[in-house]
């Protein structure tokens, strides 16, 4: 038997009952010690998912989580040879799986856990300081704000996903009633550690526009569209303070 044929059969047997293993590795799958490999592979994947989705785990309990994770692992082994970022498609998997058990919003909580991992492992860059905005209004309007490589944000229509996520991520004992309305979240890494804050819909739209490479004026218009009363100055200061941007490019620099 070639090495490749052996590896095909062995890899398959890790997820089969011993009696269903390919005849070429049947003598291995039949040994009780084969379970060591079967268990190590499964446990390694499930432990990684639990580490990468702590808010989901706390919300549903370890037993429920590990069963969901086991099903996910069976359908989707890590595609990269490391576990640090395993689970990119776990939120999508949960949206199907958890709907079936009456928790349709669970996938969105998983999305925030996933964004946390993205922020944690993103490239380093200096965060933009408020002083950078000291331009004449006309130049500022035409300038572009670049989102920081370690900034992620999301708006959740109609459900308080941020509060649910935050309480579980922070292991907050607060179990008071949550108002059921849409919420946004901003996750950043301005000084090394990952941090998070609630974001209103106008601010999410502002960041979306910046992410598309639009001008500050266009981003402001996007924010005003969802909230005509928004305090734009306060909105921008708050985003800068949270480390949401890495650069401000003025029109002269663009043409230079």
């Amino acid at each position, binding site marked *: 038997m070639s090495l490749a044929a052996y*590896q095909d059969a062995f890899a398959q047997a890790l997820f089969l009952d011993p009696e269903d293993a390919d005849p070429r590795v049947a003598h291995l799958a039949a040994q009780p010690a084969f379970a060591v490999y079967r268990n190590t592979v499964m446990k390694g994947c499930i432990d990684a998912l639990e580490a990468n989705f702590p808010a989901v785990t706390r919300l549903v309990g370890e037993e429920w989580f590990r069963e969901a994770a086991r099903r996910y692992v069976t359908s989707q082994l890590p595609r990269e040879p490391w576990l640090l970022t395993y689970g990119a498609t776990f939120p999508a998997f949960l949206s199907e799986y958890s709907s079936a058990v009456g928790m349709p919003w669970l996938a969105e909580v998983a999305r925030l856990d996933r964004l946390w991992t993205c922020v*944690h492992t993103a490239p380093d860059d200096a965060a933009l300081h408020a002083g950078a905005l000291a331009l004449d209004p006309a130049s500022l309007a035409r300038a572009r704000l670049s989102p920081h490589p370690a900034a992620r944000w999301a708006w959740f229509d109609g459900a308080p996903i941020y509060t649910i996520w935050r309480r579980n991520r922070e292991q907050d004992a607060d179990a008071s009633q949550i108002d059921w309305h849409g919420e946004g979240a901003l996750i950043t890494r301005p000084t090394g550690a990952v941090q998070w804050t609630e974001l209103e819909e106008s601010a999410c739209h502002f960041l979306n526009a910046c992410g598309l490479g639009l001008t500050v004026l266009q981003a402001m218009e996007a924010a005003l569209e969802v909230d005509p009363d928004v305090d734009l100055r306060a909105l921008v200061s708050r985003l800068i303070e949270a480390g949401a941007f890495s650069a401000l490019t003025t029109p002269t620099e663009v043409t230079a």
Partner: protein
Amino acid sequence: MNQKPTAGLGLKPRHFEQALECRAAGLWFEVHPENYVVDGGPRLAWLTQIRERHPVSLHGVSLSLAADAPPDAGLLRRLRALADRIEPFMVSEHLAWSTWRGAYRPDLLPFPRTSEALARICANVSASQDALGRRLAIENPSHYLRIDGHEWGEIDFLAELARRTGCGLLLDVNNVFVSAANLGFDPRTYIDAFPCAPLMEIHLAGHSRDPAMGDKLLIDSHDAPVAESVWALHSRLVARTGPRPTLIERDDHLPEFDVLLDERERAHDALRELAKAA
């Protein structure tokens, strides 16, 4: 910190502060590079800080050198970037496979030691050494299964791998003990026959009995202190080979840093005595 690395410890996030501050002579730290293949962020900053004060070894677990396929190019690129940043004094991997047909299975999987496998692993080790710009030390695995179709004994296989690729070897003494118990051979014979010249590093760890099979199956669990029988094999090994950097591995049931440091001190003392005697 300017002394030659003697005995080292696996680096655990929980022990970061103490690891950073510790000034024990000859102390070094080993990490799995797969936990640091990130673009940036606190993890990498943390390892960089440790490296400013201590020698660091990168001990890979997922290059899948024994797979009948080239190692993952993306992983090699990231490992190279990490190695260039950290400047490890040692880079090691395992005689095992884990990634196959694009999917990673987090374990060190066994294979029949055939001439075909040897040729493939030699090609993979050479490609990895070229990509990393560094010599690799390849570790002997723990064995749980009786595998049909071996054409080579493990020591001959490793020695030939080292001869053909110029790689070094990492001898995990606990793996020898566990494999000897599970497959029924004398660990002393293995230790005595292991080639001296390519030996670059030694691993020591604790093992445990399988919950279902008890004494019939020992597991390389890294969840207990190094067993006395494993310490005895270590003494026997280094008496013949001379001192080599020796790592105490501990992953589960993690005790306080000082407890690990005491265990590490025992290996350090043994290595220092040998160095003095030489």
